[in-house]
């Protein structure tokens, strides 16, 4: 049994401690936000927050998490009723096509804005550079992050 705290709730899961976090979040806890993309740390689709930092859950075996680690997924970031500013901005800017990369974009951008509330466009691009979008929505994503930073939603 491994214990973990996700979106403010505690869970015990009966898995090997070497299991990457993404499988536990998606298949044991039935969370939909983090997506399994490359599985090798190269695309960012699986991004979650651990103690406020954006991490790639496909590269995070449970054994590497501290017992009191606070894990937040897209579902815990905001809700339709109380959206995180980045989520609201993604809706306002229609900043996606298929939406498979969207989780990673939002989680990564939210972590950026928490650390740096007024990033330049170049800083946003730099920060999101490890997040891939095959639909080609990069410009809309940058616009949405700028909008969230301005608080203009």
């Amino acid at each position, binding site marked *: 049994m491994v214990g973990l705290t996700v979106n403010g709730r505690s869970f015990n899961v009966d898995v090997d401690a070497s299991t990457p976090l993404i499988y536990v979040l998606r298949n044991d806890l039935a969370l939909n936000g983090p997506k399994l*993309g490359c*599985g090798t740390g190269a695309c960012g689709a699986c991004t979650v927050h651990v103690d406020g930092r954006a991490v790639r859950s496909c590269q995070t075996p449970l054994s590497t998490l501290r017992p009191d680690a606070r894990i937040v997924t897209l579902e815990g970031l905001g809700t339709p009723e109380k959206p995180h500013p980045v989520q609201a901005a993604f*809706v306002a800017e*229609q900043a996606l096509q298929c939406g*498979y990369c969207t989780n990673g974009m939002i989680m990564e951008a939210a972590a950026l804005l928490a650390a740096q509330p007024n990033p330049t466009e170049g800083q946003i691009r730099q920060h999101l550079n490890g997040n*891939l*979008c095959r639909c080609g929505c990069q*410009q809309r994503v940058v616009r949405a992050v700028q909008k969230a930073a301005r608080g203009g939603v």
Partner: protein
Amino acid sequence: MTIRTEVDLGRRAFAIGAASAVAGLTIGFRWALAQAPQSGPPVPPMIRSNPRLDAWVRIAPDGGITVMTGRVEIGQGMLTVMRQVAADELDVAPERLTLISGDTAQTPNEGVTAGSLAVKLGSTALGLACADARATLIGVAAKAWSVEPGAVKVEDGQMLGPAGQRMSYGEAAGRISLARPVDVAAKRKSPAEQRIIGTSYPRVDIPAKVFGQPVFIHDLRPAGMLFGAIARPPAYAARLVSADLDAIRSRPGVVEVVRDGSFLGVVARREEQAQAAAHALAKAARWDAGAPLFGGQDVFDYLLTAPSETAVVHTAKAEAPPAATTHKAEYRRHFQAHASIGASCALAQWQDGRLTVWSHTQGPFPLRGDLAKGLRVSPEAVRIIHAQGAGCYGHNGADDVALDAALLARAVPGRPVRVHWAHEEEMAWEPWGSAMVTRLAGGISADGTLAHWTHDVWSFPHSTRPGSDAGCNLRSAWYLADPVLPGKAADIPLPTGGAARNAVPIYAAANQTITSHFLSAMPIRTSALRTLGGYFNAVSAEMFIDELAALSGRDPVAFRLANIRDARLGAVLRKAVELAGWVPGVVGKRALAPEMIGTGVGLSRYKNSDAYVAVVAEVSVSTKSGLVTPLRLWSATDTGRAVNPDGVLNQIDGGMVQAASWTLQEAGRWNSGIMTTVDYGSYPIQDFLTTPLMHSVVIDRPEQPSLGAGEGSQAPAGAAIANAVFAATGRRVAEIPLTPDRVLAALKA
């Protein structure tokens, strides 16, 4: 803010019993109406194959409206467009509609959602059906009130009479039957009457995707679900000699190990257990490697020398003054991949000999047919329900994985089995976009008009999707002990074309000869990648026209304008160069500086019949490293009536980014037996830092029919980038992608 969620997957996906009852009804009637009389107004193609009105729209006594589309959401906003069209024609709020899409038991058979046809064909049919339904319901109210139909108004599904009478759609629907052929004479609203069509109505699926609600096929978790994974051969031609299945059966979590010929797979309780077991199984198995790809030849040599079907596919002949300047060129394009961010996934369940598959296929009905062939069951025993996947950009592994899941699920009857390929597996095993070679020749008269133009194209197939008459186009079927092989691949003939798509020039050359050299056998399996042959044929033609302009000392924009006859092509070109602030000039060799900036243009009409798009690109070229960086792109698009202008812009910009990636960095490589560029390190795609700034506009033409836009910008964007490199350096890099080594080689030449 208001949140609209498109689908409740959990509920819809497993409400099988009720839905099947409806299914018999809808499908059972199609036969009788297929022979409807052929006089009168033209019958839209999708109505011809799905003539019944209640196959498209149903109205319940409580006024609940359900519309059905065979089109599916592949990340391009199609379901939003369908909702806009239906709501506008029915005069109800879009939110009120229940939309069912891509379910072989419930929706019309519209084949495949691809080729930018969804708006053009799908929404035309659905719009007509909804217009017919509205007119029919108004007719009921008018008759009841003894007034002219024109005197009845509709407000959000409520009909209002001149004397204050009211009747709901539900009540009127109870007095008639929609179980009859669509009246193709029904009148759709004029653009002036439309309120929702033509607006940037927000995508209905976006909020759910932004808040992590269940939307994707990966989010389906039926009780008792197991996970499957395939143990892949080390090469396409490899065959299994032996494998120790028992060793794998004893691994943790493994429920079943399946072998059928060279098809090997594992079913396990956990996803990561299935993957690890399949990996171990593939590695420990003994395989016979098979023959080397292309007989060990370079693919371009192979394309030019292997047997091909050669056919002149288009000619034009006219008197023209003799050519004063002539030119020939050869261009090459490497294999390129769909490279979806999420690999292909399917969920399959067998129950009493019947199979249900949840799939992100582009064509639920064609998939059903090929699955039935591969599994040797009747199509009636198979139901496909569409659920969204990651963007696919054409025929990727979406269909293949459905057979994988079905083959594994057959070993555990009653249990749903999900198979989600790994990214590397997708890259190795999905069909790739074909490597191609083009050779162009042309001549210009002294007055600057084109005297002749020839275009030859060598290509592997661009459409080997499920649904062809012969054989089974699902990969694992070829590896079974008793294999079900694919039929011989056929090319798609012009006017839309596959290998020769967009090979017919948009320029008014007096004499034209277009020749296709089609290689139906494909050592590396190929199929539809967004635009099929269109991207490379149009990029070739645009590179060539720039070279002709340079040779004859003319500005590329002025030269194009002098040689086009279609005013809409001219309009998008003028708009794009105006946005870019184009400075006319003649491209020629320049002294090399460490960093060189250039501006190029690309112009295309997709399929010679869809959206008109012009793009101007500005790039910088490092003459030291050979690296090309796209800096800015300006585009103008004419897609006729834009049903959703923001949706069009999203597609156009997205297509330009994808084209930048194809044009500058993407090339498949292989060893003797299999693709080796299978991860983001060896097959990188566009990232944020190299994405150019984009400024795009849509020229709306409400009076014109809607044209497909989803694949309109790739060719002109790719061409503009290649031509910007030409303008920057005066040297042509004739092989796509324009990687640093190729740029350096061209600079030295």
